[in-house]
């Protein structure tokens, strides 16, 4: 557990990382480094996005599954690692 906390701190301290959110399977954020409203917004919107992405992958090939999702935008990049029990969301701005 301590190791996990340490890793979390390390990621947080990387260059350009703006926030980390961990969401459980019901869509409730259980750990976050951002403020309340942003967290809720991110969690809700990203949940839908991931569901859509996952269904897309599975429709193409039912044996396949989504492992990682990266959304690159003008201002930052959102990286999502989905799983059936949780989502890990990291927002980074690499050019900072």
């Amino acid at each position, binding site marked *: *557990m301590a190791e*996990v906390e340490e*890793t*979390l701190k*390390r*990621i947080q301290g*990387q*260059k*350009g*990382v703006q926030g980390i959110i*961990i969401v*459980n399977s*019901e*869509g*409730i*954020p*259980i*750990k976050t480094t951002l403020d*309340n409203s942003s*967290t*809720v917004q991110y*969690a*809700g919107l990203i*949940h839908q996005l991931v569901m859509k992405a996952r269904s897309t992958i599975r429709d193409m090939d039912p044996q396949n599954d989504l492992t*990682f999702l*990266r959304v690159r935008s*003008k*201002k930052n*990049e959102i*990286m999502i*690692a989905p*799983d059936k*029990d*949780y989502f*890990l969301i*990291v927002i*980074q701005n*690499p*050019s900072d």
Partner: protein
Amino acid sequence: MSTSVAKLEKKKRRELVLRPSSGAINVSVSGLHGSTRRPNSVVASYSGRYFSVIGGSKMLEKSAIQAPRQAVRVFDEGNNDVTPRPLYQVAPGAVQAKASWFFVEEIPGGSASDQTSTTGGLIMPFFRSVLGSSRISTQSTIESMNEEIENTFSKQDMPINLPDVQKKREIVKEQVTEEMLKDIIDVYLSETSTISLLDIPNTFVSADADDAKAIIERNSQYAEVCRNRMGSHKYVDHSVQTVNGAAKNKQVQSDSITMVDAATAASSLKDMGVFGSSLNAESDLQLILSSEKFQHCFLVMERSILRNAFQPKLAAYRQLPVLEDPDSPVRPGTVEQRKEDIENSRSPALKCLWAFSCELSRGRSVSSMAWNKKNLDLLAVGYGELHSSNQKPGLVCCWSFKNLMWPERVIHCDSAVTSLDFSSNNPSQLAVGMHDGTIAVYNVQSQINISHVISSSKCPDKHLGPVWQLRWTQTELSLIEEQVESLSSVSADGRICKWFVFISDLNCTELMKLERVHNKKKKAGGNGTEKKSVLSELTPGLCFDFHPLDSGLYLVGTWEGLIHKCSCSNSQQFLQTYRKHFCPVNCIAWCPLSPELFLSCSSDWTIQLWKQDHCSPVLGFSSTQGAVYDIKWCPKWATVFGAIKEGQLEIWDLSANILDPVIVQPAAPGVTMKSLLFHTQSDCILVGDSAGHVTVYQLKNLRARESNQVNILEGLISSAASRQFCKTQPDKNRSIPTA
């Protein structure tokens, strides 16, 4: 009338007289159920077909199918003869079939009055039910039959000869004994007479039949009659009421179907609190965080983030074109810097990409580095203070190029690490040599149980001094015809040992003892007697290198400054000794591309290039004042090598300049460089220093990029060698071949 006739007949046959409340003759029907006793109701004989079911052949049943020899007479209170009359008169020669398998069913009688006229038809199929209801049905049937017998006439025109089951005696259960089982029982199978269950005479006759003519005539007659019917007086309309059969109610009960109500409610995200501070969320978090998949997830995420952050540098390392990020905001300072870069891009330079360092390694000096043989992105770095008096416990970190900020594996060792090597046969095994002479082999597959597989700490022959170099070599045994790997080490106690695994411990055999070789000039004048020196006979070995092609041949550099060429098969003598250095030889390296050459560097500030069969070096290089600690050939270009001096890194390119290094990179202030490693595939160099950083540099603009480097090198060597033999001639035109 016929009834009375029957009665008379019956009277003849009567033998038994029954009174009420007298013991009754047992009546049993089914062989399965044994006997039943029933007072007050006896059936003397009843007609019908009785088929009894006999389950197994174990029970011998005497189905008493007899003609009613003994008649039973029943009298009521008023002494009236109320003996039921038989419904069926058995023909004297009735066949008594032995019952083997019969089906018994029951069609119970309905009300007596209805069956007056049709008794005959109904009696015929008189069945008994198979299972337990036989007793009850027997009773009911008997009672109904009692009624019927008064009113009916016995059937005498039964076309079929039926076996008659009259009053049955108690079925005796014979005990089945062992002997009986062994008896051979004859089973007679016989065919019953054909039972017609349904007979619908056909209404069509073939035209070819014999009586076809008669039938046709009759048909025509009938048609005539029908036609005449209307006006004829012969026919009268009359109505008739048909007899409706009695309806019977039957009830069925099935298993009940249970229904369960279940309901669930879906809630939207907005209804939930944001930070579910309930216990549920907390435990969820703990569960998730400690799961293995999450760790892996974290790993991938961290690498992605880092790759984003270091993207240009990693691209340069991997020799991919560095793409400009179109969205990054352009800062005014950077534009000018880029212009500068373009101007200075002609001369060879080192570009610093990044440095591997973490909290664990800060402050520790890098002592050795090694690439993994299989995964070329994995690097093992050993940390340990080599020359200081206070020995901190050593550390080995395995760094990956995918994660630049934190090592993949961390191993804490007991004493300072002095040398490392990865195995080629088992790529996850890392051999670590330490300052106290111990050699340990670790399995770096997983971080969780990273422990040494084997260690030489218990070996009695272990090294007594620091293990300065380790190497895994592959020897091909002709018998097995496969590459066998063995670990060799050279240490400060003057021995070169080859290690093998012996009962889960490392054990060694000695390859060579490095004996002190005294100066021959002094000895020549001596009288041949050797004085025993007070000092130990062995001199510390500092480095060794195996020949790239022949793994039985190796070079050793000693503290005395001598380089010995030795063979694995000869542990007594050196094959050849190369003398030039007068200070300890710090490193030796065979040239990987040209196997005849090797380089040596020493604390006497020089680097020497040797050819294998020449006793004196072909070329010597010296630049600034400073001991040379490490030297390595560039694996890609044969004329390039790197050397680490105390305060700087030097890159020499022999095709450009043999007097001076092409690139000189000074170390950061206060830090001394310790170790050097070339990357096998790209043009990057890794330098480890005493502050615990491993810096990655990229070589830029080296002119040596053509493929015929080896030829150039060899040309150089040969020209240099020839110059040596012609020492008297001054070298005026030193030819510097250009690429």
